[in-house]
């Protein structure tokens, strides 16, 4: 039995869920049903949708929202927050280091070849100075709970992590549907996230610009996370721009407005490195801005996140993060990694190939739950296919034990049943490291499924950090 967030193995309600459990028992099922319908109608009307790739019919889909919150006691959160800050500080230090003196490689703590010949390593960033030496301004660190309730970092997302709009909208929805729940408990607020984000972005402006102009750069309305881009821009009161709204002259970035060109200082970009500047990266990109990278390199504009952060959240680098923490912070990691086998190593590979039906295999550069094998849920053919793939290109894969992710009670067709969850807190790094309590809880709505990605049928829950 996996760890359940609400109930002990003896089916007693855990102390931090008691107030909610009392409320649930006292509320008639029809009222809850009505509230659930209201939530669905409201999300549709407001247009909180998600585009799913490769599925023409469902071009816009609602991410299912579950009304049972995921509750974390405040003291537990305190420890997680400290671990998250530590981890993100180390990751930023690592990024600065590998694009400058490469001390960690010289010290032999990480094999140099694994970094320097990684396709995510951007040689263009060598020697480039970025404000505050911050690279991953916005980091989404995925945490899971397994075994007897221990937290593990499942992966780091340092490129353009998404999902924070659902965290904010889920909270708004819960407060609208069940105001009484918030009156009786001290749930830590998250609504100020956009303010923290704007502060963070303003704190990394190039030079000594007093009143910097910050914009959010989106690939456009057909991107799966477009709703979030528009939402965040509106919440921060900044312009939402596409590549065609910007142009570069004399290494300075401008946006086209009805009153003529306006200079841009900080770009919160939600476009991948590859598409940023057709003159430097992919030539066929129509989403980016020609000349942007030169402006960036000469320190005339800040990009958040920085170019080249993909090397640090690559799954081949994941195993080295505890070592980074020791090297840069001189501390022991507060949050543990999931044990991981590197398939490039013959010993690890031999073990993994023998135990495929029990393991999870991930593509090193993959993301979003695409291109992975969940051994216990896979068919024999899928396992055979992966075995061939691993043999052909072992360096492309890592393997991990199939974690019994913790569960949380969730409304499903047959009533309330336990479903597996994870947690993505968002860590902001500018002149200081900040985060709001909690994060986005994702839930795998299919029974026994461990895949929580919204692109694979996952849903979301409001996440409460509650004072005991």
């Amino acid at each position, binding site marked *: 039995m996996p760890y359940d967030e609400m109930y002990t193995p003896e089916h007693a309600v855990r102390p931090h869920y008691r107030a909610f459990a009392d409320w649930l028992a006292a509320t008639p099922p029809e009222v809850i049903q009505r509230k659930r319908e209201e939530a669905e109608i409201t999300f*549709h009307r407001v247009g909180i949708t998600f585009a799913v790739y490769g599925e023409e019919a469902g071009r816009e889909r609602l991410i299912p929202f579950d009304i049972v919150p995921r509750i974390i006691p405040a003291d537990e959160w305190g420890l997680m927050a400290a671990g998250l800050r530590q981890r993100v500080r180390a990751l930023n230090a690592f990024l600065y280091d590998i694009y400058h003196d490469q001390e960690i490689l010289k010290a032999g703590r990480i094999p140099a070849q694994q970094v320097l010949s990684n396709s995510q390593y951007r040689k263009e960033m060598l020697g480039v100075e970025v404000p505050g030496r911050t690279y991953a301004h916005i980091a989404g660190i995925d945490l899971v709970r397994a075994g007897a309730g221990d937290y593990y970092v499942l992966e780091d997302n340092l490129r353009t992590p998404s999902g924070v709009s659902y965290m904010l909208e889920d909270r708004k929805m819960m407060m609208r549907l069940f105001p009484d729940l918030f009156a009786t408990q001290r749930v830590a607020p998250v609504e100020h996230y956009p303010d923290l984000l704007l502060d963070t972005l303003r704190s990394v402006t190039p030079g000594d610009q007093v009143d910097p102009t910050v914009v959010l750069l989106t690939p456009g309305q057909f991107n799966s996370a477009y709703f979030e881009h528009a939402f965040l821009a509106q919440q921060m009161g900044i*312009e939402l721009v596409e590549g065609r*709204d910007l142009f570069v002259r004399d290494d300075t970035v401008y946006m*086209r*407005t*009805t009153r003529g060109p306006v200079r841009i200082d900080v770009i919160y970009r939600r476009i991948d490195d590859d598409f940023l500047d057709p003159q430097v990266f992919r030539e066929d990109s129509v989403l980016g801005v020609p000349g942007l990278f030169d402006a960036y390199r000469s320190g005339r504009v800040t990009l958040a996140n920085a170019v080249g952060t993909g090397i640090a959240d690559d799954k081949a680098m994941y195993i080295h993060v505890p070592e980074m923490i020791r090297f840069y912070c001189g501390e022991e990691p507060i949050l543990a990694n999931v044990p991981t086998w590197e398939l490039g190593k013959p010993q690890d590979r031999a073990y993994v190939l023998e135990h495929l039906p029990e393991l999870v295999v991930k593509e090193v550069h993959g993301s979003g739950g695409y291109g992975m094998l969940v051994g216990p849920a896979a068919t024999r053919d899928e396992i055979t296919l992966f075995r061939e793939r691993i043999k052909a290109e072992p360096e492309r894969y890592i393997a991990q034990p199939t974690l019994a992710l913790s569960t949380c009670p969730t409304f499903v067709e047959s009533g309330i049943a336990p479903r597996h969850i994870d947690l993505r807190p968002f860590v902001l790094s500018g002149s200081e490291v900040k985060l709001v309590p909690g994060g986005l809880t994702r839930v795998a709505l299919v029974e026994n499924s461990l895949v929580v990605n919204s692109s694979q049928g996952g849903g979301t829950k409001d996440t409460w950090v509650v004072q005991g």
Partner: protein
Amino acid sequence: MLSSTADHLYWMARSMERAENTARMLDVTYRMSLLKHATAEPFQEWSAILSISGLHYEFGQRYPEVNAEHMLRFMALDEGNPASIASSLNNARENARAVRGNISSEMWETINHTWIEMRNRAAQGLARDGVSAFFDWVKERSHLSRGITYGTMLRDEAFCFLRLGTFLERADNTARILDVKYHILLPSLEEVGGAADYYQWSAVLRSVSAFEAYRKVYKDLITPRRVAELLILRADMPRSLCASISVVARMLHSIGGSSSQDLQRRAGLLHATLDYGRIEDIFAQGLHEYLTDFLTKIRDIGDHIDSTYFWPTDA
């Protein structure tokens, strides 16, 4: 404001107004077509719509012949027709979606809801609630969205671009509706002042919600000259060319900008000719010729709005 944002706002408002006017035009045509004696040739009113909107070719590509059923489907529900009501509402929604951050959330929700409902109605066909009920619904949604714009938007540049789009489109559409008579009467010139003539002119009035206004203003028989005067020159008639261009000129003045003098001059000049124009002179020139010339000027203003605000050269 971002040039592209202004562009989206302007087209969002234009598309919504176009959906409404298309509904008005179809509604009046539908009513006219029910009067069997109205025209000499069958379905002449329906082909008139194609002439007004310049869609003969597109229609011919998709339907074997002009009749009420085909025309209603083509102009109301067919997303393959860029000028259909369904396409206009889809357009309004796509543009709104691109600038959600610049419009009030009530506006977005209204436009999004309209689009969702339009898809349901399109799936069910027009027959379910009746043709006129559908047109009433479109008009109602357009009224609602304009009302919400007026009631919830900050009076800033975004608001000006929305109004600009609404009224430029309205001027264009009223001119086209007024021109419908020209297309219906050709080639068989019926006697002026007959019963058919009366019904057609009153239908034109009704299509722009001006029938009651006409009675109030003229307290007399419906004559082509007065209908034209009401819909072209009366500043107090909310869908007239004069009233529409007056708002266009005012909005362009409010938006301003260093390179907008030429644009402002063109709009101001057009407004002056309407404000001080006489219906006698318009009839002397020929109504159809006058309206054709007016449409050219409107298009010209639209082009200048484009090059002044939406796609400026990076100087």
